[in-house]
């Protein structure tokens, strides 16, 4: 799709929650008043300096921000091309970027007087982050999780339970993240009075994609500042993995108008785009409507949503955030994909060279760093978002490597 480039890539969404043709508010009437209430509450919070001050305090002292910008020296030597940096969001409390957004939404829920928090989760990172912050503020927390994911992410399920959350396995549809989202929406429809739906990614009806992006943008803002103090200039390229796309949007958004910065989003190609067993909505899907927004989706010719496949439960979603869909249409971000095998290889490389066990999600981004960096000059600064740590994935990786634990 070819669209004339806008003057700024950072002004979206419009008043209808649209990014080009994408985004919007495709929800049942029951939810519409809640979405409008949320939009207003978020606007009020943004205009209130005490909200940002409270957020900053918790991000520093509870989450552990800023996260380091780390020069991956041995990986750089190994690839002998671009100078590779990791944005270390896996060092946040709970081990992933997810808590940046959860902290924002829970503080907002408190302002709105909501007492019951619901969330969906795939890999379990968003569920753990939500359970964590709910425990911190004494809020009731219910997490919906596909029963396939409950099985492959047992450590995170136990973590959520330790934190006092109720984990509800979802056995409808493909029993993964998309079905967890359906169930969370159904819960919200039935419990509109006291419930706040804490969505984990830059998708869903407006204002979620914008709100989650804003809360995650701390990643890119810090990166910009840190790179300036380390190298005295902007990075030359950014690379991040994409399921729904919140870690990527958080890194990318502050750089969108720095047109000299190349930006790469990496979708999960599963067993390969041509096998049909993948989670690459942009590379292998087309625009449609699901979960409150229009965006690229995996579907059949009748508009029925098809299952996504990825070794990484966090990327196993048949859609992508609507702002990513638009950034693809206008050509600002390059969307690539990495297979399960490429991600596994990158996972092992990172363990061996850097002493960092990455989550399988950023391993997809790392796989493309391995591909892109060797062709770049030595003074090319490449930043990859290390958005989660891999402790949760060691069982899945062991299985793929044929190791019995």
């Amino acid at each position: 799709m070819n669209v004339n480039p806008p003057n700024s890539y950072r002004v979206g969404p419009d008043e209808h929650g649209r990014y080009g043709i994408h985004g919007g508010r495709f929800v049942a009437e029951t939810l519409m008043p809640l979405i409008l209430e949320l939009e207003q509450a978020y606007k009020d919070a943004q205009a209130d300096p005490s909200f940002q001050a409270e957020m900053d305090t918790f991000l520093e002292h509870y989450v552990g921000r800023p996260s380091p910008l780390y020069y991956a020296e041995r990986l750089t030597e190994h690839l002998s091309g671009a100078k590779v940096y990791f944005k270390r969001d896996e060092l946040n409390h709970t081990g992933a970027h997810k808590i940046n957004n959860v902290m924002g939404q829970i503080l907002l829920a408190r302002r709105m007087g909501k007492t019951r928090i619901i969330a969906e989760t795939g890999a379990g990172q968003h569920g753990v982050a939500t359970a964590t912050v709910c425990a911190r503020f004494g809020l009731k927390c219910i997490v919906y999780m596909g029963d396939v994911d409950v099985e492959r992410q047992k450590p995170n399920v136990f973590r959520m339970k330790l934190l006092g959350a109720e984990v509800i396995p979802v056995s409808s549809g493909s029993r993964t993240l998309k079905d967890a989202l359906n169930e969370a929406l159904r819960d919200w429809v039935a419990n509109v009075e006291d419930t706040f739906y804490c969505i984990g990614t830059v998708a869903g009806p407006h204002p979620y994609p914008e709100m989650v992006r804003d809360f995650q943008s701390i990643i890119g803002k810090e990166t910009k500042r840190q790179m300036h103090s380390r190298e005295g200039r902007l990075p030359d390229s950014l690379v991040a993995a994409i399921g729904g796309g919140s870690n990527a949007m958080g890194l990318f958004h502050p750089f969108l108008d720095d047109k000299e910065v190349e930006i790469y989003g990496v979708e999960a190609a599963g067993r390969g785009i041509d096998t049909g067993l993948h989670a690459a909505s942009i590379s292998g899907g087309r625009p449609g409507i699901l979960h409150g927004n229009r965006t690229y989706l995996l579907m059949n010719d009748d508009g029925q949503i098809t299952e996504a496949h990825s070794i990484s439960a966090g990327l196993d979603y048949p859609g992508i955030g609507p702002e990513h869909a638009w950034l693809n249409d206008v050509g600002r971000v390059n969307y690539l994909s990495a297979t399960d095998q490429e991600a596994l290889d990158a996972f092992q490389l990172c363990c061996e060279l850097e002493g960092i066990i990455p989550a399988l999600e950023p391993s997809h981004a790392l796989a493309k760093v391995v591909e892109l960096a060797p062709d770049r000059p030595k003074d090319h600064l490449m930043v990859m978002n290390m958005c989660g740590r891999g402790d949760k994935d060691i069982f899945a990786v062991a299985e793929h490597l044929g190791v019995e634990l």
Partner: protein
Amino acid sequence: MSGATRIDHRFAALRADGRAALVTFVTAGDPDYATSLEIIKGLPAAGADVIEIGMPFTDPMADGPAIQASSLRALGKGHDTNKTLQLVREFRAEDNDTPIVLMGYYNPIYIYGVERFLSDAKAAGVDGLIVVDLPPEEDDELCVPALNSGLNFIRLATPTTDDHRLPRVLTNTSGFVYYVSVLGITGTKSPDISTVTEAVARIKRHTDLPVAVGFGVKTADQAAGIASGADGVVVGSALVNAVRDNLDDAGVAGPATSAAVLALVRQLAGGVKSVTRSAAE
């Protein structure tokens, strides 16, 4: 906007008769095309006044387990939008009076193509559409083109639709208003009759359109209760469950399947018709 549809005529006639409409929902292609057609063809004689046909979708976020399961049964048999329209054409060949409303989610229509869908639906004999995930904020997508093509666009109003928002919801609504009587997904909680009556009165302060009430109606008694306070009673999950409960162990339909569904419709119709309403109301 074009002239009156079968929906408008039907509600006007029932108003003159002094009774409420029984609006029945079944999912197209559930449990298979032939049985589904048999059920739909039998609905008018069993007492259905308006027929809602669900267009199956993999991710029906506002529906409960019963209707999601019925969608998956139909999709599992290869049902699609073309077959739903074929079902309507076959019904229309024998019945030119009973209004038909297609109910579903936007994505299959969007992928079929909005203009093509509206023209094919109209030609097949569809009278109105209910598309659950298109609130007034998205009217340009399908609602306005549907009205322009002479179809009714029926909107859901819910307990969360307050007096401030109701006018927005009712603008561009035609045919009837579908009041969702309880907060939640289809087929779960049952409605409280007095609350429903009040809610219908509230909606009627904003519109002259008929108001049909649904979500959670399972028995003839409940149907009669709703019929005393509303212009129509919508029954869906109970019928879809009757399909499910009358399949054999392999999930295959037999002669008992459509018979059981239609028997339940006759009971519900008895409940609705037992209540006489003032024609002048």
